[in-house]
Structures are given as C-alpha cells and as structure tokens.
C-alpha cells in the first residue's frame, strides 16, 4: 500500500488525505456531537445539584466591551479558564471563596472564544465584580499606579474615552457571573 505511493502521485495524495481525515473528523466533527454540554448554556436553579446560575447572551454594551478586549489583544496575556487544578480555584477565588471550575456550558455564547493560552497577567475568567469602576479607570490609565511591578501596557485611549471605558467595564464585570459563586451583595459594580 505504502510502496505504491512511491511511484504514484495520485495514490500518495489519496492515502495521505485518508489518514489525515480519520483523525481530523474524529477530533473536530465528532466531539460536539458526543458531548452536548458544549452547546447547551449553563442553567441550574437547584442548590442541591450544585452551584446555581444561568448563562445568558451578552448585552449590546457588554458586546462592545468584548470587541475592545479582542481588538487590543488582551487575550494574549490573560486566559479565561479556571482549570481543574486546585491552584487555579484557590488563586482565582475571592475573599475566602474558591472560584468554580470553568465548564464548556459557560462559554456557549463566546465568539470568538477567549480561553487564551498564556498568563503573563492573571486569569480573568472570574474577575467580574472583584474591582470597582474607579479601580479599573486608574488601572487602565497606568497599571503601575495600582499594582507595583506590573508589566501591563497603559491604555489611556480606553480610560479617556467614556463610551469605550463604560463598555469595557460592563464586559469585565460580567466575566464568570454565569455561575453565582459569591454572596450576592459582594460584587463590585
């Protein structure tokens, strides 16, 4: 079979595509068919079944903020996934509450997905409600005014543009809120 591909170009092409498509189809087309939680938004109102909450589509303002997040490449340095590692749930928890693990059903409305690959800065999957608006304003103007030693670039063109800043904060404050993981009165606006 493989010997024939030595002399016959069409045979070589057919064989290499056939081998490629076995793995290609089984790992891209099949998984979402098998695992339906990839497409079903998270919703649970029964505390007995675990953490409650509901994932809803973003508002127009949040979408605008998200577009800025994509445009500025925030996702090159910030991931949005609490992994199945104790260190992730502890580190990204807040005021003594562990951050819940991120599950595929929380990201059904994410397009483009913002899972990210690199943590030059901290993970943002559960950042919603941790810091107030004034904190974000100062931080976007110059991150080092609030966090000494930070290497995040300053974003004055966001902080100084009221429309962009409002959208950005609206998006950030909503991150990770599909799951009600902290006391309701504990979220900053």
């Amino acid at each position, binding site marked *: 079979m493989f010997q024939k*591909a030595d002399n016959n*170009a069409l045979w070589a092409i057919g064989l290499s595509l056939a081998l490629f498509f076995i793995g290609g189809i089984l*790992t891209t087309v099949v998984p979402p068919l098998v695992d339906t939680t990839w497409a079903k938004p998270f919703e649970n109102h029964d505390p007995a079944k675990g953490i409650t909450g509901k994932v809803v589509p973003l508002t127009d303002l949040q979408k605008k903020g998200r577009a800025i997040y994509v*445009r500025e490449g925030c996702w090159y340095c910030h991931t949005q996934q609490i992994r199945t590692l104790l*260190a992730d749930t502890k580190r990204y928890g807040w005021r003594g509450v562990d951050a819940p693990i991120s599950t595929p059903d929380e990201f*059904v409305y994410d397009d483009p997905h*913002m899972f*990210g690959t690199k943590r030059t800065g901290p993970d943002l999957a559960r950042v919603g409600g941790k810091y107030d608006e004034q904190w974000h304003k100062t931080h976007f103007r110059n991150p080092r005014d609030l966090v000494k030693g*930070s290497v995040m670039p*300053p974003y004055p063109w966001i902080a100084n543009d009221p429309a962009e800043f409002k959208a950005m904060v609206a998006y950030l404050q909503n991150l990770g809120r599909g799951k009600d993981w902290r006391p309701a009165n504990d979220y900053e606006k």
Partner: protein
Amino acid sequence: MQAQFSKAEVASAPEGAVVHDDATAKWFLISSVAYFFIVGIIAVIIAAKFVWPDLMGTMSWLTYGRLRPLHVNGMLFGWLLAADMGLAYYVIPRLCGVKLWSEKLGLATAILWNVIILGAVVTLLAGLNQGWEYAELPWYLDILVVVAWIMFGVNILMTVASRKHQAMYVTIWYTMGCILWTAFVYLTGNFATLFATGTNQANLNWMYVHNAVGLIFTPIGLAIAYYFIPRASSTPLHSHKLSMVGFWSLAFVYVWTGAHHMLHGPISQWLQTISIAFSVMLLIPVWAVVYNLFATMKGQWHQLRESVPLRFLMSGVVFYLLTCFQGPMHSLRTVNAIVSKTDWIPGHAHMAVLGCFSFFAIAGTYFVMPKIFGKALHSEAMANWSYWLLMVGGLGFFVTLWLGGFWQGWQWNNWSIPFIDTVIALRPIWLVRFVSGVMMFAGIVLFAYNILATALGDDERAAA
C-alpha cells in the same frame, strides 16, 4: 541523474540539460528575507516591552496587543512559509527533472503573497483582529491566502505530474502532503470556526494552531531538510524505508493532538486523553526522521566545520528532536499542570519555529541564492557570524524561558504567593530574553545583508 542548471549558469550547461528559470524562487526568497528583517525589529520591540512596559505605550497601534500578532503572523507567513515556498519552487523542479510548470503563475503567486502580508501589517496594527491565535487576519485576507495557496499547489502538483523520474523522493511527498493538509487545516482554522462558538470553536482553533506547526511547517520544513542535508554534504540519504515510516506516521498521528492545548481546561476529559495518547505517539515520526538524518551524516560530521548551511541544517535537526521531545512531555497532565500558560511555552515555540524550521529555511536560502544568481556568496565569514549569533542568541532565549517558565509554574501552584510576585520574579528572565533577542536580530541582519549583497553585488564568479 540528468544535469540541471540555473539560468544564471547557462553558459556552462551542456547540451540537453534542463535549465531552470528560478524567477519565482528568487522573488519568494528575497521578499521573505526582507520580512525576516522587518518583523525581527517588531520582535525586539515586544521583547523590550517586557523590560520597559511603558515603552511606546501611548500609541494604540504600537501597543503589545497589536504588535504581537504582527510578530507571529509576520514571522510565520511573511518569512517562514514564504521562504519554504520559495525553496519548494527551487527544489521540486530539480527532483522531477523538469522545469517549473509555470513561472508566470509562480510570479503572480509571489505578488499576491506580498499583497497579503502588507494587508496583514495594516489590518493588525489597526486592531482588526479576529481574535483567534494564528488566524487573526480578517476574512478578506484569509480568502486571498486560500487563492495564493491554490496557485502554489497547482504549480507544484502540475510539476510533479509532468516529472521525468517516476520514483518520487521523500521531499516530494512531504511537499505534496503540506499542500493538501494545509488546505484543510487552514480552512478549519479560518472558516469552520465562523460557524462555531465557545468550546467547539476553541477545539477547531486548536486543531488549526497545532497543525499549522505540525502539518504545514513540519512537512515543508522536513522536505527542505531531506533535500538539502544530502545535497549540501554530497552524501546519499541513509534509508528510504525509514523516511516512509516517518512520513506515513506523521500523516496519521499529528492531527489528533489539538486538544492538548486545553489540558485541564473546559473541554471533555476523554478528548484530552486522546490528545495526550497521540501526542506521545508523535515520538515515532520524529525519531524516525531524526535517526535517518543523523545516520546520513555518519562519518561526514567534519563537513559541519566548513559548511554554514550544513551547520544550520544539523542544528535544526537537533532542535527538532528537542522540541518534539518537549511537546509529548508537556502533554502529560502532571507536567502540563506546571508548564502550561507559563513563559516555558514561548521558549518551546521559538525552538520549533526559529531553532528548527527557520534554521532549515536559512540553510536552504544560503545554499540556493548563490546558485540562482550564479555568484559566490557575498561573505562566508558573515554567514559564519550569523550562525553563531542566531545559535547563541537562540539558546539564551530558549533556555532562560524554560527555567523562568518552570519556576513561574511552580510558584503559581503555591497559591499563597500573590500573582504579582510571580511577575516581578521573571523580570531578570525577560531582560536576558531581550539581550538574546538582540543577538538573534543581529544574526538576522547579517543573514539578510549577505543574501542581498549576493543578489545585488557585481561579483560574477560562478558558484562552487
């Protein structure tokens, strides 16, 4: 084998020999070397931004988030893929014993490719970013990439179809494999993702990102190594059978591994396990290739002292072995819990794309350009310096980031250490990375200048 000559050497060509025009190869190589230099400047700037975070920080289009995609796309598509395509335009006609099917089509492809890269510079700096890694370019440029790739593919495949020698050397399979797999991998990463969201989209995105390296740069890179290592050392390839093992196992194994980019993440555990199993199996194609190329050099290693291209090639093979040992190891859940998302990963990625595949492309360019122009290389000493600068700078870059990244991952797993302390801890690492980056850039400058001076110089000595 029939004697073959470049157009520049036509005076010395005997009657009946195939004379290659090489215009397409020439233009692809020259533009790719130019992008290597230009994007190298961007690379040094973003390395500097880690050391001086306020550097050029008040202009939106010079911020890290805009320059990084330009660096990645510019190096991958402007330099490396274009150089690889240029070398394919040179190598494939020679292995087939015929002229390139159409130089006109080839030149049109070169022009279109440059339009795409210039479009990428403008759109990425303007912040028109689709939000997917390696697939940042807007859809209208994606379509042009597909068109250019079809033009490249048709030209190469038609050349293969009209070949004089029936048996196809391993370089031809790898090039054909690259053309076909790239087509589907690129469509998945840039178009199929448009119809998916969330985890499903991420899975398609990672299939593309992983296979951009595994089924685009790996096969075309190995195609080049398989041609130039025997050619530059005048030694026949060790084993044809072993090269078949490497090729067919690559074809089967590589595509399964995309989900290893999301280990421990929000994606099904069973899919993570499949990706881990196949990542470990990657050792088969890699070791088959590496053994074959090492065995080819048996008794010939002394040639590395004399030949800069050969030295780049064999260093690339060593980096290939190392990168592809790291890859399967990272995919093990325990190792991944430490190194994933840290600075280890850019260390690993740069060893693959710079240390291995760019070294192959640089070697090919050094080897081919003097022949295409019918001149001697402008300066052997300068070529030697470019090797050592890239080698020492590269090692400085890779090794410090591995150490730093491992340390960083170790600290992250102790959640009593505040995140910012793990950032501050890495500052010396980033300073060393910047200095290494400057050395690498100096190597690129010498390489680019040497090639340009060879092309433009009036030295008419025939190449050895």
